[in-house]
């Protein structure tokens, strides 16, 4: 495992830990936001964006390149019909299931899957 992959793994640990702490791996919590009963998801997304904002926009003004080398890659996405059409399809599936890509990966860790695996083999 090289240094980059170690950093990515630790970043993933933090991401999954925070996501689980905020309850967002649970479909019920996400659904309670989409049913307008609990607005916590906006707080979580805002807090996450704020700390990411500092790293993405302010750090590169003082540091010329990433600590492990390479370059700071801007996240470039051009607005197209597919951006919106895809977001509509994603939104419908999100409202149906209460799951998104990140939360489904985290839910493998703190949800029924791992629990049953442990019960079977422990």
């Amino acid at each position, binding site marked *: 495992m090289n240094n980059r992959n170690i950093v990515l*793994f630790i970043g993933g640990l933090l991401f999954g830990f925070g996501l*689980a702490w905020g309850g967002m791996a649970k479909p019920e919590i996400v659904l309670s936001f989409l049913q307008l009963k609990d607005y916590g998801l906006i*707080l979580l997304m805002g807090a996450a964006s704020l700390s990411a904002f500092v790293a993405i926009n302010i750090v590169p003004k003082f540091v010329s390149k*990433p600590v492990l080398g390479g*370059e700071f*890659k801007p996240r470039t996405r051009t607005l197209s019909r597919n951006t*919106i059409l895809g977001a509509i399809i*994603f939104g*419908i599936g999100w409202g*149906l299931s209460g799951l998104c890509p990140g939360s489904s990966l985290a839910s493998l860790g703190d949800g029924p899957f791992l629990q049953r695996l442990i019960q079977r083999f422990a």
Partner: protein
Amino acid sequence: MFPLGIYPYIIGGLIIGIGVALVFIMTGQHATQSSFFSSTLSYFSKLPYFQRKTYLDTREWRLYFAAGVTLGAAIYASTFSLDGFWTTKVQLWRIIIGGFLVGFGTRLSSGCTSGHGISGVASLSTTSLYAVITFILFGIVSAQIVRFLGVLP
């Protein structure tokens, strides 16, 4: 507005953001989620869609990142969490159909709740902002219709 309090959301969000920030400062990469599924399929499928350069270049670290996400959630459930591991009452058919739409939609849109919602918004991308507004609006409409039809939770 916040029946479970605000602190879990703010603390959880900050930890997620610190993870994204750490990855960006150390490697220059945006630690986002939905591309993981396509980039991992590039190991198995020869379809040109999966063999594109952006997936081949990032598929290795995306595996480490995804493993971290799953393990991080497992660590939370077995340490700090008051309820431990959870189960869901959402019906399997909703998870299967929803999962298909989420996978297809996030790839068509080139981003999900983390790619558009966290990294995109943090990058002040208007494209991502439009995507976030769209998927939240349609998520609300979809969830309300499901509830209106009497399907719970």
